[in-house]
């Protein structure tokens, strides 16, 4: 029996995640500018219902086309291991062969996603999905990296966490393309709606993030949310912004991969090599680094 395409994709993702040079190079030669696929980011507080929403979106979207989800959970700072539990909310989906779900550890990276995420995205895109959903760690602050990666960012808020104000402070609301007020069945949903409309909703470059109310575990409000997701995609296409989004993602990828490669080389560097830097030639080193970066970045245009 031959391996399924899902098995092949799953193995590709592992190799990229493990920063295997051959896999990274293979991923880098896959295009990130496929316009047929929409990359949707979901962020918001832990327990807010991100996974439950993701389950509903996958189920609906998966009726018509291939859809994928990448679910990021935090790694343990002590052991480096992780418990990846988002799939618990998606148990019934695996019987649909159109749906591919993959759990990922953030591997210690701040910002809600791991370093290799954009490279992974390239590999996933190659399999002809209509939508790829990324669920971030959802740790509160510093979730903003998802805005550099996804085409459409859903920011989930829930009533009475007392975090309406927290969220405003952390800057997370500013990255919303769509606000999702989940747990709209709970008291306080109306005042959250009003608060978001008054303090967070504003037009940015001609797009005003709409407010969607959902009760994710009952599937309420999902159709309206999918309509807004589609409307945002159409707006991105009509205003030539989709490729701009992907360029941002590519830039994020360059930054992350550069950092990882630098760390790899630094690990191998004997500290004796830094003797000169230690005593007096610091200025020289800075100049060298600056020139090297400038040269690399210039050469990107030629790739």
């Amino acid at each position, binding site marked *: *029996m*031959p*391996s*399924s395409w*899902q*098995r092949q994709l*799953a*193995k590709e*993702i*592992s190799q990229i*995640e*493990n920063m295997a040079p051959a896999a990274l190079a293979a991923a880098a030669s896959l295009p990130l500018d496929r316009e047929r696929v929409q990359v949707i980011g979901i962020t918001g507080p832990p327990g807010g219902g991100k996974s439950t929403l993701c389950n509903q979106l996958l189920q609906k979207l998966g009726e018509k086309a291939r859809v994928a989800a990448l679910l990021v959970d935090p*790694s*343990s700072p*002590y*052991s*480096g*291991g*992780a*418990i*990846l*539990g988002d*799939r*618990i909310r998606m*148990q019934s989906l*695996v*019987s649909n062969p159109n749906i*591919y*779900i*993959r*759990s990922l*550890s953030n591997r210690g990276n701040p910002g809600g996603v791991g370093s290799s995420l954009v490279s992974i995205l390239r590999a996933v895109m190659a399999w002809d999905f209509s939508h790829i959903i990324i669920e971030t760690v959802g740790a509160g602050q510093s979730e903003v990296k998802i805005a550099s990666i996804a085409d459409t960012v859903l920011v989930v808020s829930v009533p009475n966490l007392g975090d309406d104000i927290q969220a405003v402070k952390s800057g997370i609301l500013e990255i919303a393309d769509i606000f999702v007020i989940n747990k709209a069945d709970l008291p306080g949903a109306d005042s959250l709606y009003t608060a978001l409309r008054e303090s967070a909703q504003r037009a940015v470059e001609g797009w005003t993030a709409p407010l969607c109310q959902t009760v994710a575990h009952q599937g309420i409000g999902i159709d309206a949310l999918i309509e807004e997701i589609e409307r945002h995609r159409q707006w991105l296409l009509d205003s030539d912004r989709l490729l701009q989004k992907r360029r941002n993602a590519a830039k994020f990828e360059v930054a992350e991969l550069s950092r990882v490669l630098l760390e790899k080389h630094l690990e191998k560097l004997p500290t004796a090599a830094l003797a000169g830097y230690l005593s007096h030639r610091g200025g020289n080193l800075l100049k060298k680094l600056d020139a090297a970066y400038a040269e690399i970045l210039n050469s990107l245009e030629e790739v």
Partner: protein
Amino acid sequence: MAPIRVLIAKPGLDGHDRGAKVVARALRDAGMEVVYTGLRQSPEQIVQAAIQEDVDIIGLSCLSGAHNSLFPRVVELLREKGAEDIPVFGGGVIPEADIPGLREAGIAAVFTPGASLEEIAAFVREKVRRDNA
């Protein structure tokens, strides 16, 4: 070094996953990435999740008494899907007398409630290391 990826799954109809969660946490504390899929999983769901997650090994926990049919079924489905290279171990309330039959059916190890968490983590690490060698 790449962390070991483990799927911890609970086939069968019993509603207790405390044991499965304790094992999941122990494996995380041993540096592994543990995908946990929750209660009442069918063998089909478990195998599909294992393939999508590209795990190195599957751990099954069963307290309902149905291990003699459920565990071998997972191994069989893995073979059908061309994923028989993913080893399976099991744990739960399993009578000693059932263990040889399960081993015969391709279950790489069976841990009864007396097994220590260190023992399980050591088994997983050793099994994955040997299979990849």
